[in-house]
């Protein structure tokens, strides 16, 4: 099939029906559970997953868990409540700040940030970013730390390894406590935990092992982000959720997924990736996407490197025999 601008268009109605059937069968036959617990963040992926589950199982067999912590945007909870009201499932709020503080999340993170910026204190917010010029050169990933204060002043430095690892290790406590909270609600009801990652996140490794990566089933892990948007339109989820820029919802300064992980806008990344998977020659992809051949090659190399680096995240526990 020829590679065109429309190669990632799906028949959203047909895909929805097939996904609902799969969700029912997997929950019943493979998992022996009778309902679904979904972490609802007000983002597009968890929204589509919750809407699909409500349709597949009936809203009375679905519960959406909102899990804010002190760095979360208050908008996330508002959007999640709106979603739950529209699709008729119960929404429960579990603030995980107390659990995070108890494990030293904020302290450990701030200690690492202060090793880079000694002036950092809770009046500043912080984020980590990667190079976003990945179509221009074949660069390794490295990380910048940016801190911002309330008057809009910001400072940026490349992170030494030890600081980077400690900030990431501390932030990953958030995803793992969210998984933990979802399983509490699932085990209490004998229901299943839904993982809400899409293909971009799953296959490029943008998830935390046993954090948001830990779930019983992942209904949209095979769909490109721009396909998830098509399902969202078909399912008529709230417009503000569709229009919201995807963020990590992990750092105190707002950071887009493009800045933090993918380094490329979703349309270009998904199309390049599809082209790579289907062995579309770089020349053809360049023509369809309005890029140079060189840019396509850098994009291919970057995606390939990320996909190859994810083995660790997806490995089941290794046994010695």
């Amino acid at each position: 099939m020829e590679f065109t601008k429309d190669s990632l268009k799906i028949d959203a109605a047909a895909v929805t029906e097939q996904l609902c059937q799969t969700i029912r069968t997997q929950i019943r036959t493979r998992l022996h559970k009778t309902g679904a617990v979904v972490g609802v963040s007000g983002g597009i992926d968890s929204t589509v997953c919750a809407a699909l589950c409500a349709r597949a199982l009936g809203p009375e067999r679905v519960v959406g868990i909102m899990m804010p912590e002190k760095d979360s945007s208050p908008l996330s909870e508002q959007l999640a409540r709106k979603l739950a009201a529209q699709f008729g499932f119960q929404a429960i709020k579990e603030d995980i700040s107390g659990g995070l503080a108890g494990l030293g999340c904020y302290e450990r993170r701030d200690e690492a940030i202060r090793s880079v910026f000694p002036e950092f204190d809770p009046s500043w917010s912080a984020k980590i970013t990667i190079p976003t010029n990945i179509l221009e050169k074949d660069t390794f990933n490295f990380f910048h730390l940016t801190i911002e204060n309330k008057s809009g002043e910001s400072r940026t430095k490349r992170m030494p390894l030890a600081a980077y690892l400690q900030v990431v290790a501390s932030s990953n406590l958030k995803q793992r406590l969210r998984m933990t909270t979802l399983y509490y609600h699932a085990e209490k009801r004998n229901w299943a935990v839904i993982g809400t990652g899409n293909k971009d996140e799953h296959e490029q490794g943008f998830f935390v092992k046993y954090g948001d990566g830990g779930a019983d089933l992942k209904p949209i892990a095979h769909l490109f982000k721009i396909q998830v948007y098509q399902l969202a339109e078909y399912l008529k989820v709230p417009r503000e959720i569709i229009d919201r820029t995807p963020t990590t919802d992990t750092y105190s300064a707002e950071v887009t997924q493009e800045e933090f992980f993918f380094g490329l806008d979703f349309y270009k990344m998904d199309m390049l990736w599809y082209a790579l998977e289907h062995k579309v020659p770089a020349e053809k992809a360049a023509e369809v996407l309005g890029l140079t051949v060189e840019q396509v090659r850098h994009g291919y190399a970057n995606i390939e490197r990320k996909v190859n680096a994810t083995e660790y995240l997806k490995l089941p526990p290794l046994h010695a025999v």
Partner: protein
Amino acid sequence: MTIDQTVLRKELRQFITDSFLIGDDQVVFADTDSFMKNGIIDSTGVLELTAHLEEKYSVTPSDDEMLPANLDSIDNLVNFIQRKLSATAAQ
């Protein structure tokens, strides 16, 4: 209290379908089929089932009665419930 066997059989089948098959009545199983061996109910499911017996029929299996022979098929359940109910009635 006694219950008509046909009614009981139908009620139990409906409960199994609603609770463990999420309403999917396309799944075929015979009255003699083991729930466990056919993947319809797992070990936690057995506890959901006994909670239902208690609530709906006021039938509580004793520790010694928590056996596949009493609980692991529609037939076993029907026999067990009727036995327990007539024992209660006879008191």
